[in-house]
């Protein structure tokens, strides 16, 4: 389909045990042959079979590396073009030299996402599948990879296809009654509104599952907040299991905020440590407190820490008041010390919030905390329900939902069939955009500019 042959390193950048350079296009094999000589000299390279050989530097006329070559002839390949994969040691120097030689021999460096673009353009995969592949490449967590795989198999496509047929059925009933007024095909407004309500219900469920999708694909941000010296940085380090934040016995040690990834049950959170709230001692601390307040208010969730070895203060109460309507876990820290706080009193001010007693320093109850974080912040999906990973998909689903809601409203207000039919008709191309059947420029460009090189 495309005239030129593209080449790129298709394993992640950096040192690895193994690296793969991939070619796709008509000239993949001739180009590869220029820089690869099989150990057992064969007249032809057999397809779909790794061949051991040496990489040949045709500029310096020398062999420089042992490698395997696999030739995958068109059309049963990812891009539906001829594909060659060369695997050798994962040194960036070697891999980049292989790519450079490939370009010398007639290939062109692949643009970001071009392999997947070719797969899409050749009709090999639909847009949903293309996006799912991107997720595998960039998945921050194993769980997301699993979701990506099931999506790749087209399960979301199926779900949307079924939604599509549901809507097509609905529309065809309305249309039939319009087109054949003489044939007694009239369907009652009540029947139609029932069907619309069902479709709206299903759509809402799909849209809601987006929240879970966000957790898994982007990771939620969790801010550790509380008064000064309650042990926020200690907790930060303990959870991450590394000395990331500087910890001293003195209040106000942390001035700027720190971020790091926290993995809980294969879900990724961005954990934020910040300056303690309270009257600042320096200008820098003041600025840190200001930033911390903003971060905490923007975070998806809050770990609100109190020092259990001290009596509760009005500042604590202020913080509880501030965060009790957010997704917040209450932490009574320093339970390894003599307890002064009146937990009952504190809890009574935030009855809906989960509360936990921990010692960040000794590591007491930290596993329990992780469990709580997971249960509290990761929305639990019911089995077989789909997860929507992308904002684009969510927005499209919401658009479809809006059309149906408008249609239902128009129907209930007593408007004529052709008017609310118009709303249902609008959803057909939108669903097409979801399944990639209708290709509009902005979608495609948006998707493929996000792909990393080589799948």
């Amino acid at each position, binding site marked *: *389909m*495309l*005239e*030129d042959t593209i080449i790129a390193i298709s394993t992640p950048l950096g040192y690895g045990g193994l690296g793969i350079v991939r070619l796709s296009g008509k000239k993949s094999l001739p180009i590869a042959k220029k820089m690869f000589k099989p150990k057992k000299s064969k007249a032809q390279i057999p397809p779909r079979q790794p061949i051991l050989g040496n990489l040949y530097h045709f500029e310096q006329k020398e062999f420089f590396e042992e490698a395997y070559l696999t030739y995958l002839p068109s059309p049963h390949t990812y891009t539906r073009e001829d594909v060659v994969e060369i695997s050798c040691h994962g040194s960036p120097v070697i891999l980049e030299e292989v790519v450079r030689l490939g370009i010398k021999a*007639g290939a*062109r460096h692949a643009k970001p996402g071009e392999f997947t*673009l*070719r797969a899409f*353009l*050749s009709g090999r995969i639909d847009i949903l599948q293309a996006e799912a592949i991107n997720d595998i490449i960039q998945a921050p967590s194993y769980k997301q990879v699993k979701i990506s795989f099931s999506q790749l198999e087209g399960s979301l496509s199926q779900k949307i296809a079924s939604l599509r047929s549901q809507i097509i059925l609905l529309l065809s009933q309305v*249309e039939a009654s*319009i*087109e*054949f*007024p*003489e*044939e*007694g095909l009239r369907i009652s407004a009540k029947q139609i509104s029932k069907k619309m309500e069902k479709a709206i219900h299903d759509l809402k469920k799909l849209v809601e599952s987006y929240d879970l999708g966000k957790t898994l694909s982007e990771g939620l941000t969790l801010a550790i907040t509380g008064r000064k010296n309650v042990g926020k940085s200690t907790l930060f380090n303990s959870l991450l299991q590394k000395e990331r934040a500087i910890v001293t016995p003195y209040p106000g040690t942390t001035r700027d905020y720190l971020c790091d990834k926290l993995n809980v049950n294969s879900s990724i959170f961005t954990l934020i440590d910040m300056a303690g709230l309270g009257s600042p001692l320096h200008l820098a601390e003041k600025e840190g407190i200001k930033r911390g307040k903003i971060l905490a208010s923007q975070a998806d969730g809050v770990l609100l820490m109190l020092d259990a070895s001290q009596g509760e203060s009005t500042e604590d109460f202020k913080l509880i008041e501030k965060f009790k309507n957010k997704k917040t876990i209450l932490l009574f820290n320093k339970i390894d010390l003599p307890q002064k706080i009146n937990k009952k009193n504190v809890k009574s001010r935030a009855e809906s919030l989960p509360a936990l007693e921990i010692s960040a320093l000794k590591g007491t109850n930290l596993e329990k905390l992780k469990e709580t974080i997971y249960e509290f912040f990761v929305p639990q999906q019911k089995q077989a329900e789909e997860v929507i990973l992308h904002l684009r998909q969510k927005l499209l689903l919401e658009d479809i939902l809006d059309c149906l809601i408008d249609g239902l409203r128009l129907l209930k*207000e*007593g*408007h*004529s*069939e*052709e*008017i609310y039919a*118009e709303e249902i*008709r609008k959803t057909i191309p939108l669903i097409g955009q979801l399944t990639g059947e209708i*290709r*509009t*420029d902005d979608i*495609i*460009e948006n998707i493929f500019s996000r792909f990393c090189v080589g799948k």
Partner: protein
Amino acid sequence: MNFVDEYDVIVVGAGHAGCEAAYAASTMGLETCLITIHLETIAQMSCNPAIGGLAKGHLVREIDALGGIMGLLADETGIQFRLLNRSRGGAVQAPRAQSDKALYRLTMKNWLEKVPNLTLFQGVVTEILIKDKKVQGVKTLEGNRLLSKAVILTPGTFLNGLIHIGLHSYSAGRANEPASHELSENLKQLGLKSFRLKTGTPMRLHEQTIDWSRFTAQPGDKKPVPFSFRTQKDLKNQILCHIGYTNQKTHEVIKKNLDKSPLYSGKITGVGPRYCPSIEDKVVKFPHHQRHQFFLEPEGLETAEIYVNGISSSLPLEAQMEILKSIPGLDQAKILRPAYGIEYDAVAPTQLNHSLEAKNIKNLFLAGQINGTSGYEEAAAQGLMAGINASLRIKGRKHFILGRNEAYIGVLIDDLISKGVEEPYRLFTSRAEYRLLLRIDNADKRLTQYGYKYGLINEKDYEAYQKKQERIEKAMHFLQKERIIADNKEKLRLKDLLKKPEVKFKNVVEYKKFNGFLTDEEIRHVESEVKYEGYLKKQEKEIARIKKIEGEKIPENTNFRKIPGLTREVMEKLEEIRPQTIGEAKKIPGITPAAAMNLHIYLGIQKRKSEKGEMFHVKH
């Protein structure tokens, strides 16, 4: 030496497509010859005695707005008139009329005989004369040669027509009228690919053998709505139609006789229309239905023939009689003409340009059933467009193509040309993307300009059209400006009041007097414009957006072979024709919407790249 004559345009076949084509070409000032196998069957309604209905009635209005004749003729010869979907909004209302078939035929012949520049001629065309891939004229069975600059082919079901009744079949274009084999063979030799289609027609019964008391009468409208914007006379309902149902017994008879059906025995290979199935199909495909509805429709005032709409069949005559026996009220009915199925050749319409001209033969135009459509109205619409385009071609003027956003005619032709057909194509309102825009009440507003421009609408009618627009404008202005105080003490524009689903124009003028006059037709127009306003505005924006994309320039140095996702065929077409805009590219046959979108995306990326100062082409 055989007879030779010369014309500008020759139209082959005088059905609904041929008549419109010949009328348009001659009215546009071209010497035109309309050739038919049989002068008595000009404009014969081969199947049902009715014109119009949903989408079809829309087409007739559009034909009329462009200056065609079908609407005027349907009004002139109609014997019962109904506006369908009166309870729904204006966009899905359409007129339908029962016609007096014989009167329709006679009146058409009579009218065409009076048209200047138009010659009617009885003959069988066996060959299209071609030189250097360009039409020269036609040759008839007797060997006569008629020369012309353009030929419009409208042979209906006559190409290799094969009639089936039971397992018996015979060659015919219509019952007992000769089919055309030579012409079909000739078209194949000219390189036009054809395929088989199938359709059918029900039996005709004698009205005095029907027990009418067993059926429900269906009268016409109290206030008939004409097809034509130009019809002046009062329309009268002169007949009743009746509704009846088949029953379980009928279905048993049909099932028992399926082995004698040419459809189910595999004798018929052509594809039939899903939307107009034979009774055999209905019974087999919908086994849960206890009954199927049918209509008894008189074929005219001077005949006793009754058309049984809904029981088309190709079962043998004995089975047809048995079917009637099973239905109370028809049990004594006498069949005057048996139902039959017919197979015929159609030419794949993807071989035509949007002007309906064959791609590989210059000045050869095809219209009607030969392009895979069914229906008098679909045929007439194509005939009119072919007639106009053949004339424009001869005059050296630019072709006339209607967009999907302009007319149902545009939707129809674009569907045929860009998608092709697999079964006889019928128009539906749902095929239109802009259904609320393409209405019967604004067909003149959409199209009369064109009819006037091409000389098909005369000065007098055009003036009447302009006056009508002025009246409408005045009413729209009134609705926009005038306000009333609503229940909640707020001021409400009359227009917003009229937008409410239950409110009609007549309710609005109860609040404020309107110092103008509107006909019922014009009131329907005003109501639609107001009630659909929000949608119409959005659709206009959408249309403008598409127009913008279509106007996008394709740089001269574009290498079409570099564009990802295009098939070799598409690339070659683009390389060969080198369109200058996306719109032009879209019009190239074989360029799919997806391919055009790819082109658009590619150009967008290239443009952005060159703006960033990067290389335009990727280096090798």
